């Protein structure tokens, strides 16, 4: 297993990375089709529940209540965790989180761990941190395992290798697990992974999971998988660690009914994930830890326009519906969480690095419609653009064009005096400039310039007289 540097691609922005992805049109069509199919499955599942839209509204209100009372829920949750015998840790940032995990393992002289899906630990780059300190971590979710052996981050939060063809996966298995060259049958490959990972589960003393939902009322947390990998790791481990973002809390146990009805249907169109495991107390002889992580969440909480992004339950539905995501791939977002939700979370983490993400959208609004907790994603994308410009991260050329446009458009004389139809555009609107540097023209014909504009026609016609019927 390779240590160290992940394939980050070049430090390019979304447009450049997307363009590279789109070059292989056959692959893009396949990627786009696969994700659209999942969107359709989600639609079918949502129509099985007549009260679906009310359920979304309830989930949205529950999460609004959570983030507006987060302080008290955190205290209540911590109190109950401790009563249940779980050791609680708090981490301000990624570094602190990683240190805590390391110290837990070191105290038990453990140098191997098995991990089930946790986007938070991906954000924190936990595996790399531990590898540098001699601790080997294996991702047990099949998609994440595949990405791990390929030294590439996951491209989708639910479907980590949705961008990979089975032949590529077969090649990776041939290289890392000794399967026959050319073997690409998904069932056979999965059986090989099952066998290999089973040994990992049986031999590793420590297991780490993420948290889908944490119940303040009872001090338990829920982990949802289809593969059963979280449970295989946890129930064989001596030390079990759960890494959790602060916002994963829900107030009461009964609220799980709302969220578990929405989560899998939104994510994949399933009525429920195969395993929805409720962890409450350690096994006899086992140690259980839970790490509460901030890593930018309290800062986002304080942003009036963007705090609602913390309601996210990480279903990925926004990614599946987003045409930009489907046609550019998750890796073009250069952030652990990609797609529409990633574009409103990432600027909070590093506005300079991620200034391009809110612009990787046409603001079509489909994401907001599929979001089970009704986050107004497309409105937040628009609002982030205003922030990015105000804080000076917009490209210079854009700023100049915009100022010129504003001046021209706010003065009717300038507008009209720009002369013949189309001429004012030539000076001010980028997509109309008629030369080879005009990006519009690269793959599209220009709109024709008619002989007179509407305004010119109206002035000449008998304005005010009704047309002949």
């Amino acid at each position, binding site marked *: 297993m390779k240590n160290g540097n992940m394939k980050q691609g070049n430090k390019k922005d979304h*447009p450049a990375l*997307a*363009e590279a992805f*789109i070059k292989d049109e056959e692959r*893009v069509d396949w990627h786009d089709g696969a994700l*659209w199919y999942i969107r359709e499955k989600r*639609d079918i599942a*949502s*129509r099985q529940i*007549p009260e679906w839209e009310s359920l979304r509204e309830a989930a949205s209100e529950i999460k609004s209540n959570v983030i507006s009372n987060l302080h008290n829920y955190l205290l209540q949750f911590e109190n109950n965790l401790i009563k249940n015998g779980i050791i609680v840790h708090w981490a301000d940032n990624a570094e602190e989180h990683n240190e805590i995990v390391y110290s837990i393992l070191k105290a038990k002289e453990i140098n191997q761990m098995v991990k089930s899906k946790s986007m938070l630990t991906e954000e924190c780059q936990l595996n790399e941190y531990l590898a540098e300190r001699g601790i080997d971590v294996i991702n047990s979710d099949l998609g994440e395992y595949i990405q791990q052996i390929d030294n590439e981050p996951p491209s989708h939060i639910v479907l980590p290798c949705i961008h990979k063809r089975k032949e590529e996966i077969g090649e990776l298995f041939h290289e890392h697990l000794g399967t026959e060259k050319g073997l690409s049958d998904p069932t056979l490959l999965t059986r090989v992974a099952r066998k290999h990972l089973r040994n990992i589960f049986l031999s590793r003393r420590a297991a780490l999971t993420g948290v889908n939902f944490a119940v303040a009322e009872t001090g338990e947390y829920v982990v949802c998988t289809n593969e059963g990998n979280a449970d295989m790791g946890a129930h064989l481990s001596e030390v079990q660690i759960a890494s959790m973002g602060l916002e994963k809390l829900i107030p009461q146990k009964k609220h799980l009914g709302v969220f578990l009805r929405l989560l899998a249907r939104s994510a994949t169109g399933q009525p429920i994930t195969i395993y929805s495991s409720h962890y409450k107390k350690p096994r006899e002889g086992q140690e259980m830890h839970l790490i509460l992580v901030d890593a930018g969440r309290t800062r986002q909480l304080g942003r009036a326009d963007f705090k609602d992004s913390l309601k996210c339950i990480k279903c990925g539905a926004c990614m599946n519906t987003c*045409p*930009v995501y489907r*046609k*550019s791939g998750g890796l073009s977002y250069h952030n652990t969480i990609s797609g529409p939700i990633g574009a409103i979370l990432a600027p909070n983490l590093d506005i300079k690095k991620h200034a391009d993400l809110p*612009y*990787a*959208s*046409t*603001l079509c*609004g*489909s994401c*907001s*419609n599929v979001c089970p907790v009704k986050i107004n994603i*497309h409105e937040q994308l*628009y609002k982030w653009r*205003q922030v990015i*410009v105000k804080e000076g991260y*917009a490209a210079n050329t*854009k700023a100049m064009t*915009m100022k010129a*446009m*504003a001046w*021209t*458009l*706010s*003065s*009717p004389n300038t*507008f009209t005096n720009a002369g013949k139809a*189309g001429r004012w*555009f030539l000076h001010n609107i*980028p*997509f109309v400039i008629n030369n080879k540097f005009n*990006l*519009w023209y*690269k*793959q*599209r*014909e*220009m*709109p*024709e310039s*008619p002989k007179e*504009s*509407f*305004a010119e*026609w*109206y002035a000449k016609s008998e*304005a*005010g007289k009704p*047309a002949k019927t």
Partner: protein
Amino acid sequence: MTVGLFIPCYVNQFYPDAGKATLQLLQKLGVDVKYPRKQTCCGQPMANSGFEHLSQGCNDLFIENFAAFDYIVAPSASCVLHIKDHLHSHENEEQALTIRNKVYELVEFLTDILNVENLDATFPYKVSLHHSCHGLRGLHLAQMSELNSPPYSKPQRLLDMVKGLQQVTLDRADECCGFGGTFCVAEEAVSVKMGKDRVRDHTKNGAEYITSSDLSCLMHLEGILQRSKSEVKIVHIAEILNSTL
């Protein structure tokens, strides 16, 4: 009732026929329509790029031009949505609010205000309807495919009144075309790919004409259609509803 006709900047310059059709259609339906000569733009291209703070000039000019009318009608869902959501004024906020409440895109004006039940229109071609995202998810001109809610469609209801017109069903009812304002050049590769995919959906399902409430979408699709030398044409919905071929 008096109606102020708002013709978006690029419609004015590149698709004047859609503006003419809108004017003529409203007149046919007995509406007293005027076109304020000093209008320019709604300010959307700047605001969507993050330069909302530069659009005050546009906003004030809009208010000045249109405050006096009972209704403001435009053959553009995206411009109307922008006005509805973002028209504000430091000096004239009350007037801005009034305008936000009386600005209408053409289709919704016909169905909701004029309550049109039939049209004397003929357009004997296979037509596919492109739902612009602003019209659909912004102005709710039709039901959105993501929602578990009862279906309806204002543009389709109007197209149903046109003689000889055959409507084409798409594989993906309301996927975005990829124009997105400055997105069309800032993310050129994705924009074109999205447009090509929509064109393929319309074309493979037999469309001869693609229509919409938004010429920004249609301009983008037309650019792709013409580059591939397709026979399929675009036409703004106003021209269909006003058509008496």
